[in-house]
């Protein structure tokens, strides 16, 4: 993983936790897809249907997104317009990069505070969804809240690290860890393994070709 967490045991733990959650969410998406197909076939052919797969799907998205936010932040994927940043001198760039992290962390803290209010009200008033499932809202909302809490934790941790680096005057380190991704990094993170696979296939095809020519 191409993480920009500062190297220490806590980061290692955070990295593993986020990665584990991503994998679990992924398998859940696959499972939900299979359930959806079973439900579709059942509904069309045998007129039976699970109640509320769409409701669960909605909660799934909320939780998927909340977990994904942390992973994307760690791997520096959240979108920024880097047109101007790229053209500035090192010091100005590091100031903007620190500012970007601080504002993002500020927004996350604000969001988590308001998300907490939503969750605590659901608990206090024992809200249920107005659907056949009558889901107690605190169940999906706690998972969602924990996802946002993790995101906020990562945001604050990284913003703090960026600020410390900046106060030390280590602008190069700030830009390396918190600047928009360079082209190579972006290609690597969006297509890295796929490219390796393609290159391997090409090598194999070449070998086959050579073997064929050798035989001829």
């Amino acid at each position, binding site marked *: 993983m191409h993480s920009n967490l500062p190297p220490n045991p806590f980061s290692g733990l955070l990295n593993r936790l986020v990665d584990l959650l991503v994998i679990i969410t992924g398998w859940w998406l696959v499972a939900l897809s299979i359930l959806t197909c079973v439900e579709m076939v059942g509904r069309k052919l045998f007129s039976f249907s699970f109640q509320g797969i769409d409701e669960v799907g909605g909660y799934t998205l909320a939780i998927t997104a909340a977990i994904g936010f942390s992973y994307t932040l760690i791997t520096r994927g959240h979108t920024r317009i880097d047109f101007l940043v790229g053209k500035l001198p090192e010091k100005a760039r590091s100031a903007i990069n620190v500012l970007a992290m601080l504002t993002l962390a500020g927004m996350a803290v604000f969001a988590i505070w*308001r998300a907490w209010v939503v969750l605590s009200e659901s608990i206090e008033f024992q809200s249920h969804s107005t659907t056949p499932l009558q889901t107690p809202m605190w169940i999906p909302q706690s998972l969602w809240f924990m996802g946002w809490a993790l995101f906020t934790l990562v945001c604050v941790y990284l913003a703090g690290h960026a600020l410390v680096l900046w106060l030390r005057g280590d602008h190069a380190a700030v830009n390396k860890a918190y600047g928009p991704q360079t082209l190579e990094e972006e290609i690597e993170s969006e297509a890295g393994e796929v490219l390796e696979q393609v290159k391997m296939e090409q090598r194999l095809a070449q070998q086959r070709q050579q073997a064929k020519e050798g035989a001829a």
Partner: protein
Amino acid sequence: MIGATEIGIGFLIMLVLMFLGLHVATTMLLTAILGAVLYLGMPAVNAVGNQLWAANEDYVLLSIPLYILLGEILVRAGTTDKMYKSLSDWLNFLPGGLLHTNIGSSALFSAVSGSSVATAATISTVALPTFKTRRYDQRLVLGSIAAGASLGNLIPPGIAFLVYGAMTNTSAGRLYAAGVIPGAIMTLLFMGCILAICLYKPGLAGAKEAEPPLREKLGRLKHLLAPLVVFGVVMGCIYTGWATVTESAALGVVVALPIAWAYGNLSVAMMHDAFRATLRLTAMSLLILTAAFYLNFVMGLLGITQTLSALVQGLDVSPVQLLWVLAVFYLLLGIFFETLPMLVGTVPLVFPVITAAGIDPVFFGVFIVLMCEISLISPPVGMTLYVIQGVRGEGTIAEVFQGTVPFFLTMIVMTAILIHFPQIALWLPKLSFG
């Protein structure tokens, strides 16, 4: 209700913050909170929590991670190289030879993959070695890959349509139906453009391939099957009303698994890589989208919709005039912006304007996605161009820029066609959904 000046200032603040390089989501949320604090007071600010939950808990939007996952599985199934070879079997006879294969395979790949960076990088890696020995004009080779890679969002299932649909309450199924014909016309126009260039200057196209025996060609045809089957199943279910957009995305995921298995590339490690890529791309879109939902909410309370509608009705412009003005606006914005920020950042403001002018929301979805496609290949910022140059690793970026010019112009022609013949977008959704 606040006036047009305040709206303009608010939009400007957001743009400036974006240009400064803050996270796009931060700038939107900040602008929204600023508006809420100044004009609405704390209740609107405190509504952030409920808005976040409402924005994220959405079954239709679950289709975003599912389509991305489906693409990530297919991309890792290891069919790209073979798909390229098979397409070239059938497109090679055209003047311009392999250049058409670039368009076709990029279009296929990008229709499946949610990332234009991944498309450009992968197709370049597959295609560029093939061109090494064949004396094609380098610029056209690069331009055709960039052009093909830009087609992804217009050809369903793309993420841009889902995002636009969610923001404007437009049916994603209708949008997908509306994108098909313009997507096909765009592909044909690109190929026509290559054809015209290579007929006019045959020297730009390289040496022709020896025609492979028909049996070999037919044998390889199965490699085109994977993307076509998935596309057929997913879109077929939507168009026939068999499944909702989210259900057919789930179906796509289930269909993609045996395909990856058939190519011998289904493994736990591969799935885990696909999950990571999926959550990354999903979260990138959703963080921005979540902020945009709250911005939309605040703008609704501020009566910005009414202000803008009144403004447009007062101007007395025809829909066609308005669309051309917007086209110019998006062309300029597209020089600096990537697809998603451009789409999400402008829709809350532009959508009330176009509805007031009597423009169909489904049609406008196709229009704005086309504008996003143009932004992908318009220099000097177009990300795909740099990716292609990065994979190429020789020559200059200027050659890539030059190569995209004919395709850029073709896209302008497409814009004109779309504006003046909106039926090409609206006919199919009408047929499917009434």
